[in-house]
């Protein structure tokens, strides 16, 4: 236990003193995100993520949103395990035909009002996989998308900015 406390003490709080310039942009985006959320979703925005055919690159960067540097939850945004609990759907990957029905059902299972966000080049445009016998291409071909976050994969900062845009568009 002492070792753990010592390590925690040594590490300190990284979130409040983030280094480098990227993090200034993140802070700005984050602060505005909190302002918008507090008016729309009373300080809480629940996201359900669905990988509809991704290569797992986008997932790694979405994971990074929860690391001590970005700490997404401090803005009232959190990932939930069920679409029934979600305000927003975050979709990655070109929609593979084998995931087409699962994605539609997940979207249908979410209560309104709801937002769909496509993250990554594949979900936004179909990327290099496009439309084929195995792929439906971009997420818009399957369910209506409100906000697109491009990038292969989008950086955590861009993801955060995109989530902000998702809320902003609901005005």
């Amino acid at each position: 236990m002492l070792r753990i406390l010592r390590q925690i003490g040594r590490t300190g709080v990284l979130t409040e003193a983030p280094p480098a310039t990227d993090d200034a942009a993140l802070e700005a985006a984050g602060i505005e995100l909190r302002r918008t959320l507090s008016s729309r979703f009373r300080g809480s925005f629940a996201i359900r993520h669905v990988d509809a055919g991704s290569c797992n690159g986008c997932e790694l960067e979405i994971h990074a949103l929860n690391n001590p540097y970005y700490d997404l939850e401090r803005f009232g945004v959190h990932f939930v395990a069920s679409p029934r609990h979600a305000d927003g759907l975050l979709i990655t990957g070109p929609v593979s035909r084998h995931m087409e029905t699962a994605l539609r059902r997940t979207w249908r299972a979410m209560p309104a009002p709801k937002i769909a966000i496509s993250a990554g080049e594949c979900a936004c445009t179909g990327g290099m996989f496009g439309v084929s016998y195995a792929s439906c291409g971009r997420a818009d071909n399957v369910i209506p998308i409100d906000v697109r976050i491009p990038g292969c994969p989008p950086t955590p900062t861009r993801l955060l900015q995109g989530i902000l845009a998702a809320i902003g568009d609901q005005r």
Partner: protein
Amino acid sequence: MICSAPDPDTLAPVVRLSLASQDWRTAAEMAAALGWRWAGIWGDPGPEACLVRACLVHDDQRVLLETRVPWSDPVLDSHARCYPAADRMERHAQDLLGITFRDHPNGHRWTRHQAWREQDHPLAPDFPVHGHGPKRTPADTDYPFVRIQGSGVYEIPVGPVHAGIIEPGHFRFQAVGEEVLRLETRLGYVHKGIEKIAVGTEPAALARLAGRVSGDATVVHAWAACQAMERATDHGVPARALHLRALLAERERIANHLGDIGAICNDVGFAFVHMQCARLREQWQRRNHQLFGHRLLMDVVAPGGLACDLPAEGEGLLRADHERLRRDVEPIFAIVDDHPSLDDRLLGTGRLSREDARMLGCTGYVAKASGLGFDLRRDQAYPPYDHLRVKVPELREGDVASRVRVRMEEIHASLDLLDQLLDRLPPGEVASDLPRPAPDAQGIGLIEGWRGEIMTYVRFDQTGRIARFFPRDPSWFLWPALERLIHDNIVPDFPVCNKSVNGSYSGHDL
């Protein structure tokens, strides 16, 4: 048995062995009796016949069995009776190419769900890349899962959409109380037609596509594809580029191991290590972005070399990073190594025996934790590893704790390799032009990724574009290992067992 060795150099370092199709199974039985590892099967469709190849490995030897299967009678004996590892790859070949494997223990479809009909085969030359129309694809509801009957036995279906930020796949548990009697995985949900859309691409585009076979292993998949293309064209890559490719591959290994060690601890409720490792991983990725322009190092490896050189200030920064990471992981790994609540959950959980690991064809940390210390970087070394000291950790217990320990040791071994690479980093160019390939030129790429051995086959067509691309991720052999090692464990330990193996869905589904 009648066999011949056609033009031994065309697929070096692999030895080709041409067989009559009636000897296909006998050859596998002989290899199995001698303890060879089965390492993959794929077909290369031609106008009249499909050239089917299966790879067998023993220590530093690698043999490629070849046979022609005519489209008029597309039947071949199955290897799956003597090599369980062959089960799903043969079914993948069956679904995509239309080859029937005789005497297969389970001839059901595998990669095919409902996106194309049983009589269609996407890799057949006459199958259009767009398939047969934009119809909606229904859910795959009638896959024949094995069910266990008996008092108190119940079934838990999970997926394809999981309760976390992970890839999609379906798990079907048969359980009694908390104990798992049987787990059957059903994959193929992220099948994106990679093998089909690769046909007709230019080498540079193929490298980018290979970098997205499995996004967490982008460096090593791109390297394997480039190595295959470079061998096919007999092209020498600048030494500096090779050293930097290895540097990128080791950075990728460290980033993934850090993330997974944290996630394994998180899966047993020990968030402290998760946050500490996530912090180190983030610092590591930021350095990737600063020096190579991409946090995951995508599209840095290109045919003929690299897309960018290490900047002048890079070497100093990297050396300092290596020293700092060594220092930073020490107190964290000391806690992981010896903490009662982690020991309680990780020791003895999800055991994979050495025999099972061998039979299922496992490589990488899963095999190393079960006493099979094979590593391409040491045992079939390719440049630049042929001049480096590669330390390969090997443990015997085969449980989750061993897999964690192997990964911790691999981080140290990779840091050591990174310093060796910087010490020997030659000056010069990092890019070169891939020469125009001869018609039908072919090559095999063999790279040790962080998950294990990657084997990639590439053949060019008459015009210098890609005719066939098959990337074989080690995950093909990790998913069956997961089914095996979860036996007699409790359902709540499934997440940690799964994370300790961490097979790629995307790399498997293609």
